[in-house]
């Protein structure tokens, strides 16, 4: 295995983006969506997730380690690229650039988001509905969260498309084309769920 390290890293990077990170993102946004049903519903759903047995192991194995690897290796991939969308403005090349831009935004956003919620929880703060209302009461933070959530849903949806190519699942141009539509649907649906949850804390 050792001699094909780059190959394995790239494949692992692609896989981790979908399983578990993409699955976790979807689950996270759906749990957040309970906020649209009021404070009690959100607190009970978030409380259920936060009190799962072995939660710290689940967090490290399914969330922190995969995201850390994906983020660090992803930044390495970003620095290996010289974007040329000005000369070659094709759709896929634009998506390629956006994937890298949203990736870098997400490194910043997720670092801040984890600091503000999970690290504070470890330091004794309680993560609940009021905490989010408090954070999102600042218009700056609201915009930051909107950009963060949209970046995440885009990065996941478009990453899902390239996952299907990188693992050789969609080979023909037609299957790749249909997968583009599927990824657009994933992006729109997850974005709506994410935005509804976000604005539930505002109003």
């Amino acid at each position, binding site marked *: *295995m050792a*001699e*094909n*390290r*780059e*190959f*394995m*890293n*790239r*494949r692992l990077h692609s896989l981790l983006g979908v399983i578990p990170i993409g699955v976790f993102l979807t689950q996270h946004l759906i749990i957040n969506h309970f906020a649209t049903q009021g404070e009690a519903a959100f607190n009970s759903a978030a409380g259920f997730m936060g009190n799962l047995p072995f939660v710290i192991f689940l967090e490290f194995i399914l969330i922190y380690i995969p995201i850390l690897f994906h983020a660090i290796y992803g930044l390495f*991939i970003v*620095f*290996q*690229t*010289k*974007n*040329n969308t*000005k*000369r*070659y403005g*094709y759709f*896929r*090349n634009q998506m*390629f*650039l956006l994937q890298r831009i949203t990736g870098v935004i997400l490194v910043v956003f997720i670092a801040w988001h984890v600091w503000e919620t999970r690290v504070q929880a470890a330091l004794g703060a309680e993560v609940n509905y009021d905490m989010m209302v408090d954070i999102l009461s600042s218009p700056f933070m609201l915009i930051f969260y909107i950009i963060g959530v949209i970046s995440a849903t885009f990065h996941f949806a478009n990453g899902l*498309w*390239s996952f299907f*190519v*990188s*693992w*050789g*699942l*969609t*080979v*023909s*141009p037609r299957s*790749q084309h249909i997968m583009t539509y599927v990824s657009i649907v994933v992006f729109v649906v997850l974005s709506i769920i994410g935005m509804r949850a976000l604005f539930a804390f505002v109003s």
Partner: protein
Amino acid sequence: MADTNKKVRFIITRKDSPESESYKEEFEIEYRPNMNVISALMEIRRNPVNAQGKTTTPVIWDMNCLEEVCGACSMVINGKARQSCTALVDQLEQPIRLEPMKTFPVVRDLMIDRSRMFDSLKRVKAWIPIDGTYDLGPGPRMAENKRQWAYELSKCMTCGVCLEACPNVNDNNDFIGPAPLSQVRLFNAHPTGEMNKAERLEALMGDGGLADCGNAQNCVQSCPKGIPLTTSIAALNRDTALQSFKNFFGSDKL
């Protein structure tokens, strides 16, 4: 159409030696019907006077077949890499900007060194070994419909346009680029070449190989021969995935 006073303006990125800085020089030449970029460059070579009326050195470029099958005359024309022999002046926006494909080492003016592509073909073993110590006899037959399909992949002329268009082929990345990848698919499809399939896939799984593709898909849009490069890459992604499973879980690595 045939306006005798019509001029064609060129802005050419020049470079006197591999080490020197590049600079731009403008040229204005008489329009002739059906002119292409090469015939314009030949006109400049015949009379090397720039737009300011100063005599300069003739512009150097590479060419060979003049019918888009050799790949030698590739350059960046109005921002996009293509062959200068089939770049018709009538179809180009003026001034026509000519630049070398800087993804490759620039030898002089518009002339580049495409050696890395030929090295890549060696690296991925883009050939079919047929030599033995005795007559091995005829190889397995190839189905005619498969031969016709493979012919499309064999049209690659290592022109380098796909490497120039690829955002992942650059100084920060040792990606070998789309052209040699697709050649692996071609030789792996051949009934005799297939016998060494695993060797080629292993080569692609090495550093700078297939994994560095970021699916920007500029290559397939740019290929002058219409080779389905991204289909080849996706197909090889599948083949290398299966190969890596075989390597890890199986005993039959070939």
